[in-house]
């Protein structure tokens, strides 16, 4: 039935409108002071031209990995809780219990990485080295 797909069409429309407002708004209202660095294509913070085989902070990998864990968590939890409303009451307890067990495991890992300093961007050793370099210039 095509009528069932109308919500998806509305979703597409909403996405287009919101994107247009955000991008257009910043284009209209934002100050424009271009520098070579700003106009360069965005490449996750890396200089987009040159050899691909250079060293860059290992933090990128760690952060990306941690991001994926929580990204996947959210991807699981959304359908979970959309489903719960339609369930019979006696099943709800079980489903919420399963979701809670899943979330608890992730919260423990989150506490772990927080306390281990995995989310602190500045590596103390690297930080000191950069500071010394700036002083010498």
């Amino acid at each position, binding site marked *: 039935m095509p009528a069932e797909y109308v919500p998806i069409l509305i979703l597409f429309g909403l996405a287009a409108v919101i994107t247009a407002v955000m991008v257009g708004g910043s284009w209209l209202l934002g100050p424009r002071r271009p520098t070579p660095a700003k106009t360069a294509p965005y490449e996750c913070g890396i200089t987009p031209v040159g050899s691909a085989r250079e060293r860059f902070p290992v933090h990128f990998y760690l952060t990306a990995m941690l991001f994926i864990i929580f990204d996947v968590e959210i991807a699981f939890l959304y359908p979970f809780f959309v489903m719960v409303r339609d369930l019979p009451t006696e*099943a709800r307890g079980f489903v919420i219990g399963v979701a809670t067990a899943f979330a608890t495991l992730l919260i423990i890992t989150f506490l772990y990485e927080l306390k281990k300093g995995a989310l602190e961007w500045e590596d103390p050793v690297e930080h000191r080295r950069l500071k010394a370099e700036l002083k010498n210039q």
Partner: protein
Amino acid sequence: MEALNIPQVEWSALLPVLTVVGAALLVLILELFLPRGQHTPLMLVGLLGLGLAGYFQLALWGASLVTWAETALSDNIAVLLNLAILVSSGLVLLFADDYLRARNMRYGEFYPLLLFATAGAMLMISSTNLMVVFLGLEVLSLSLYVLTGLARAEVRSEEAALKYFLLGAFASAFFLYGIALLYGAQGSVDMRVISASWVASMPGKMTNALLVASLALMLVGLGFKAALAPFHMWTPDVYQGAPTVATAYMAAVSKVAAFGVLLRLLSAAMPMLDLWSPIMWAIALLSMLVGNLVALIQRDAKRMLAYSSVGHAGYLAVGLVSMNMTSLTGVLFYLVAYALMTVGAFGVLSLMARAGDATTVDALRGLARRQPFAAFAMAILMLSLAGIPPTAGFWGKWYLFLGALEGGQTLLAIVLALTSVVGAAYYLRLTFSLYADALEAPAARWSVPAPMVVCLLICLIGLIGLGIAPRPLAESSRQAVERMANGEWQVVSGE
């Protein structure tokens, strides 16, 4: 919308695994709040968790439960093998701290990783649902990759970790592809369905071909984890490069877990015996020959034990090919004995490595003068690995040998006996060198720490006890196999 069936859950079947996971999480959090390098509480909590899990596991003896929507089970095989895994983990946990401290590897992560790996290995054995088995396999493997690379400053450890990770991921992919094809063939990932769908399938039809391909792929994946011969290439490098405590753990636990799954899978695929039996036959023969012959020329004791573990995997494979009550009893018996022997042997080597001595066979010369107890323990462990009575290793080989004869695998039985003699050559050479005079001035004396004494005593008492009175364990193993063969399951799942 379709009504959702909430599975009726029998908690006790998964309680041992859950206890270990709980202990692992507790240790993980505890480590954050302890001062750096303070690892005794972690060890104690870990041991407590393992002990509790062992208690819950023992309470399940005699039950044949299938629960959690048929994704978890508990039978006597699971109880026996899980107890072997728990004991090996407990022993490694006991003596690891000293080694890690001496080698300047004070990473608290060792403890949660070890416990997670244990939970994974137990999960592998506690299910016939292959997706759950795969989940357990990955939890075990991923923890082991990290444990292998724990010596971050040593290139060899890093190399071993990378090698193990790449090859292991490859083997896991094989296993997973096998599961996928199995689902394609029968619409279920439960191995208990294989036999029925094989009987129902027509030769030359799609289902038939898919079942054959899936079994072959799963054999490759599990053969890698069990270090069976054409898939054993990683074993010596990884065993040698990994920190010795991690080697002790992985040698014992991953072998028990992989053979547990192989045992279940192959007996589930009993009607396909004609197909897999020649393959396993060749694998068993190759493993016994390659493992034992190459171990003969190894200089490093860790490498020697690694190759000999390939040989031991070959002996166990003989038990699987023969596929009768005696041989399967032998497999279970051998796995329990093997876990004790390996943990003990690598434990003594970790003492050597800890003191900065090399782990070459030459460096072990004259150990008896310096360290009478460690040398004595090593000698008994070597005798047991060689299969000399009155040790548990002898009875394990005996049952496998008898089983092979009973199953009509005379050639395999002969090769088993002959390669055991080859094995005895290098084990005894090591034992003699322990009691020979040292080649050069002996290195500094070192004391055997108390936890290691306890651990070695447990190994020795276990091995000699089982050697003198093998009957209780043999009987329990036999019961476990018989119950599995009868296939009486109490299915707990609400509809």
